[in-house]
């Protein structure tokens, strides 16, 4: 099955810094989502981005489907950005419509 790898596994930032999180996947996908799991455990939808570029405030994401990777950019980080960021993909042609999750990037933003 498709493999999803995220890097870095963890990251510590000072408030105000910028960061880039990467998601590599091993096969073609028809769905790619970025989630933020906050310290209370909730999975928050950030982007639905099977291809192209999107921006939402301080966050933006780019997926280059032909090269099998996606990037999540966080600018001017805040302590509320702390948590785990997951990339999840849907396998192209898959019958189940399921998402396959990466192992996540643990982000800690220090004041």
């Amino acid at each position, binding site marked *: 099955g498709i493999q999803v790898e995220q890097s870095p596994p963890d990251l510590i930032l000072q408030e105000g810094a910028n960061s880039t999180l990467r998601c590599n996947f091993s096969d073609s996908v028809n769905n790619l989502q970025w989630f933020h799991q906050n310290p209370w455990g909730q999975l928050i*939808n950030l982007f639905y981005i099977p291809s192209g570029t999107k921006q939402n405030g301080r966050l933006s994401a780019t997926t280059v489907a032909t090269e099998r990777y996606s990037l999540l950019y966080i600018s001017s980080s805040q302590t509320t950005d702390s948590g785990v960021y997951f990339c999840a993909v849907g396998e192209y042609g898959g019958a189940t419509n399921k998402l396959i999750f990466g192992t996540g990037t643990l982000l800690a933003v220090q004041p």
Partner: protein
Amino acid sequence: DAGITQSPRYKITETGRQVTLMCHQTWSHSYMFWYRQDLGHGLRLIYYSAAADITDKGEVPDGYVVSRSKTENFPLTLESATRSQTSVYFCASSPGRHTEAFFGQGTRLTVV
């Protein structure tokens, strides 16, 4: 409230007991899913449903049962709980194939 809700949020049960986790969505989404989240394994699919009365196994279905008699509800039952089923369970829904999925708040289940 609109959206997808899970209940209970926290549950402690004893080994061997039957437990049902509830999931309700108000969007009339066709697809619904159950995932479990464990350290070292990330999120893994337990069962999914493409529509009412249509369910199928995911990656880790053993020990679980699902039903979907109504579009909006997708309960997950642990027939005889084991300690290995201690986990955080997430329900999700999406409107169609290859569309954005939305997750509930999660249920933290501890089996003692």
